[in-house]
């Protein structure tokens, strides 16, 4: 056992980590250029910033008496939980991450990467990193914008709420939630895009799974991104009707357990994706 561990350690030490790091950085840079600076990505910008635009319009045309801070805080929590996590980040990540491998198969340009001197695992993880950076950049900047605009209308009361009250802590929690959502959904959609020619129907199943997840047994709840994120919400959203299904409270879990649980889920999905990419074949005619 000890010999095996020693051999594994020796083997790992002999790997060209420096080269992989350089390749990963360069691949990520190329992918970022394609993800963020193309017309095809414009609808993802729209998904990310449409709440920001709406909040800005409200800020310009509505009066904000200070007693409404609590109400607007709930509105912001609703926007994050019901719009960003359920729709914006979900579909934004579907667009970004399913394009990374499947999109290049559709455009018939993936073979250039597979013929480059880059290990396929490095390629996959670099693409995942680029997709994550793109998604995190778009959605986190949108959240910061939403937050700033939401409280800007309250003037001094708003500033006090942010800097002396719970505001800053809530924003940090929202940013953590969005980062984890991007990573979680990103890993899932990257895998789905390698498993299916058209990952959209499978993504719709994931959306359905996420919706019914709160009413499933606790073991199955662990196979969901939203279930982990729910435990990190700084403000609970009370919802009626159909939205109640989206905000069902499950057994309480501490923040760090939820974060660690989601990171483990992401690691498991990425490990399986690495296995899939090693055996990936280029057969454009059948793809």
């Amino acid at each position, binding site marked *: 056992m000890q010999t095996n561990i020693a051999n594994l350690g020796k083997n790992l030490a002999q790997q*060209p980590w420096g*080269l992989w790091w*350089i*390749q990963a950085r*360069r*691949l990520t840079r*190329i992918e970022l250029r*394609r993800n963020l600076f*193309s017309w*095809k990505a414009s609808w993802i910008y729209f998904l990310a910033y449409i709440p920001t635009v709406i909040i800005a319009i409200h800020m310009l045309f509505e009066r904000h008496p200070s007693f409404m801070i609590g109400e607007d805080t709930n509105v912001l929590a609703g926007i994050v939980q019901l719009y960003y996590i359920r729709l914006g980040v979900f579909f934004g990540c579907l667009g970004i991450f399913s394009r990374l491998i499947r999109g*290049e198969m559709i*455009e*018939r*340009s993936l*073979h*250039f990467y*597979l*013929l*480059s*001197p*880059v*290990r*396929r695992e490095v390629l996959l993880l670099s693409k995942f990193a680029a997709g994550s950076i793109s998604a995190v950049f778009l959605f986190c900047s949108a959240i910061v914008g939403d937050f700033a605009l939401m409280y800007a209308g309250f003037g001094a009361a708003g500033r006090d709420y942010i800097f002396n009250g719970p505001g800053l802590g809530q924003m940090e929690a929202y940013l953590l939630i969005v980062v984890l959502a991007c990573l979680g959904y990103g890993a899932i959609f990257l895998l789905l895009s390698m498993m299916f020619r058209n990952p959209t129907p499978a993504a719709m199943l994931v959306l359905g799974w996420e919706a019914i997840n709160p009413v499933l047994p606790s073991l199955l709840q662990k196979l969901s991104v939203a279930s982990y994120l729910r435990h990190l919400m700084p403000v609970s959203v009370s919802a009626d009707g159909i939205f109640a299904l989206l905000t069902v409270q499950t057994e309480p879990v501490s923040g760090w357990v939820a974060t660690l649980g989601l990171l483990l889920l992401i690691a498991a999905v990425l490990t399986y994706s690495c296995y899939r990419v090693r*055996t990936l*074949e*280029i*057969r*454009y005619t*059948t793809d």
Partner: protein
Amino acid sequence: MNDTIVFEDVSKFYGEVLGVNRISLSIPPGITTLVGPNGSGKTTLMNLMTGLVQPSSGRISVLGLTPDSAPEFFSMVGYCTQFDFFPRGVTGWQFILDSLMLHGMEEDMAVHLTIEALERVQLGDAAGRSIAGYSKGMRQKIRLAQAIAHHPRVLVLDEPLNGLDPMARAESIALFQELGRQGMHVLISSHILDEVDRISDRVVLITGGYLIAEGSIHQVRQEVHEKPMQVLIRCEHPELLASKMFAINHCVEARLHADGKGVFLRTADIDQFHTMLCGIAAKGLVKIDAVAPADDDANAIYQYLIGSDGSAS
């Protein structure tokens, strides 16, 4: 390090469809041409070699390496595929530079090699333009530039002459010849047999996924026993020569050259044929100016072994 490309009993099935079946090959350095009709398995063989598809059975190694060890393998191998598609929105310059940067080299070196590769395929002036605006021939050239930019030891070219005008074809063939002379492995699949024939050291004939023959063109031609070899003899009195050769019962067919200054003769035993011809020349019966094989080329071998309809004979 091993200096050959080796296929050991390699088969590839796409579901129930046969790609290639039990191919065993050992390819030394030089220019090797893969010859076969459409759908015969040429591209599958190249894709198997470079790891774009995985073999259903058998083993492949290129200079002792497999595509699993990508950094070492692809620093030695360049593959110019038949796929006429590129990453969206890139310029020719960016396309080559990006691929070189993935080798982990310094940017200065990558820039130097990009310039060199673009000059080699004479695309320097168009480098700053988007590839989407390139002609088919230019796209073919930029793919070739990308495949050779990192100075690989093995160059795999799938129909590299497609879309090129006659001038560009001649330039490309000259480039392949130069690379072959430098001791590189150049593996070409092409249906423009007349042109690759002039530069190939070896041919690999494949049809329906099966290997039909391999070796030097001369070697393969000699093994096609059922098709007597055709020889063109340039001489003063071709009719007389033909009658003499028939008289000693050694020719199966004779046909006068269109200019009347030569004759095509077919023989089942080329060595014996040359002995007889020397005898006739020595006796001074016919003054012979030149003797050259007339069907000792890839085109003829293709016709004999595969047939114009693509079916193996």
